[in-house]
């Protein structure tokens, strides 16, 4: 059998395969260069970038929980300007699309961030993070209010012509309402899900384990929730979806694609195996060969019911 077709396209971003690395779990790409071939995956997404450098939260910032981990990093990042000056030159030499994950403390900041990257040819697209559960400014959490989310997306849309992906928070009553609001405001693709807010307690100390008290749950523990949300949203909107949440191997990745995702992102798995994304892409291809599927796109939303 000839090699199966693995390439997919998201909002005009052409990827050699459907495997991307999730924001905040892959550093700025450089950290992983010694462990894997960065040109073996579909796309890389940067750590969430804000207008000004951000210090992040106090420690402990992470703790393992059954089948997953909680993190409350607090969006520590170098800021958009230092990213462009210090991190982008390395990424420019890698022949894999780079998508920047943007986080604003206010509506205006989202707008300014979008304008800042608009002219940079080495950036393939934008993933707008409206879902960060650890940082709140003025009480607005854009990711849980369809009206506020819509405003952010419209403003970003008007400030950049780059392909626009919006990353959704699972910490909402109805994910479909949020998905529709973002698509109506101009999102060309949706990433879901970000981490689920949770907490861990140290009984002996009678204290929360994380300095921030609550944190975002990621890893295998959240996969069933993420699959369900991808499936629900796939039935409600027309734009391509990127499935995220506990993808540890090719089986997980292909399940997301059956549920309706065009691509997947690998998060926590990068911490366990730095080359996880490369391995998952290779295993997916092998699965297609073994199961005589000629093109991965045949599986998108192909769930029988």
């Amino acid at each position, binding site marked *: 059998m000839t090699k199966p077709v693995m390439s997919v396209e998201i909002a005009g971003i052409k990827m050699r395969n459907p495997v991307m690395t999730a924001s*905040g779990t892959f*550093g700025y790409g450089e*950290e992983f260069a010694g462990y894997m071939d960065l040109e073996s995956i579909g796309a890389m997404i940067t750590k969430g970038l804000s207008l000004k450098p951000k210090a992040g939260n106090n420690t402990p*910032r992470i703790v393992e929980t059954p089948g997953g981990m909680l993190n409350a990093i607090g969006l520590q990042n170098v800021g958009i300007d230092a990213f462009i000056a210090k991190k982008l030159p390395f990424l420019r030499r890698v022949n894999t699309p780079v998508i920047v994950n943007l986080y604003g403390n206010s509506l205006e900041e989202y707008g300014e961030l979008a304008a800042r990257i608009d002219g940079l040819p080495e950036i393939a697209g934008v993933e707008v993070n409206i879902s960060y559960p650890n940082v709140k400014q003025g009480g607005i959490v854009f990711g849980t209010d369809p009206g506020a989310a819509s405003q952010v997306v419209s403003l970003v849309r008007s400030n950049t012509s780059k392909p626009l992906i919006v990353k959704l928070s699972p910490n909402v009553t109805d994910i479909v309402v949020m998905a529709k609001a973002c698509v109506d405001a101009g999102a060309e693709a949706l990433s879901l899900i970000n981490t689920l807010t949770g907490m861990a307690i140290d009984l002996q100390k009678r204290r929360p384990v994380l300095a921030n008290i609550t944190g975002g749950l990621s890893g295998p523990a959240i996969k069933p929730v993420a699959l369900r949300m991808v499936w629900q949203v796939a039935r409600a909107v027309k734009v391509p979806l990127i499935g995220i949440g506990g993808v540890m191997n090719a089986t997980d990745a292909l399940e997301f694609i059956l549920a309706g995702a065009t691509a997947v992102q690998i998060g*926590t798995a990068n*911490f366990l195996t730095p*080359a996880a994304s490369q391995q998952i892409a290779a295993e997916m291809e092998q699965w297609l060969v073994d199961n005589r599927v000629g093109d991965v796109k045949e599986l998108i939303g192909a769930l029988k019911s």
Partner: protein
Amino acid sequence: MQFQSQVLTNTEVSPGYYRMRMTAPPALVESEAGQFVMVKISSAIDPLLRRPFGIYDMGSFATPYSDSGRQTFIEILYKVVGRGTGMLADLHQGDHLDIIAPLGKGFDFGEAGEEKILVGGGVGLAPLYLLAKELVKSHKVRLFAGGRSKEDVLCITEFERLGVETYVATDDGTLGDRGLVTQVMMKHLASGGAPKRLYACGPFPMLRAVAGIAEEMRVPCQVSLEAYMACGMGACLGCVVKGVNHSAETPDFRCVCKDGPVFESTDLSWE
């Protein structure tokens, strides 16, 4: 690098403390004292994250089973504190582990001929053994080892065999002097000339005390820190510690995994 390793030995050296020797690729003998390994204890999702351990020792031995005729090994010295280390203690010769190593920045040896002081608290002695092994080649080395009780003072004879002069302090006086290791160290340093360099690994309060002593004596001091880690390679930003310039307005966080685990004591805020 990431590699598959086999357990060679796994021995309880004191109640609740184990020393494990495992196979490693030849390149691992280039590891520096103070660097660490990230161990995936089970291939299943529990425990999910790798666990970090300092490199206690490394070397190679003759074997007919390898092309080069030699097998490289690394050793860790660990305390059972929870699920992961509990599972590690149950492993036997021939069991498999997935390891990423060597990681982080190691110790700086300083100039030859200077006197060096090592201070270890409990299992914090682990990375100091490999350091001592290097230092004794061209320096006079003294070790101050502390622990709660005599069971918590590990592998002292190993250090003595290297020719290191050792002093022990325990909280309950069951071995060596009674009291804090830093107090015992002060007593001995008061007599005799000042050392040229301090190295410490152990609980944070002990490290802070050693850093304070170093500052008073105006000698350089390197400390090896611990932090809760997810990736061990600078990607998750979970393991940070406050640097000397840290304040709410001018944040200065450093990654223990990548900027450390060994730091100059003057580079940290000690808050």
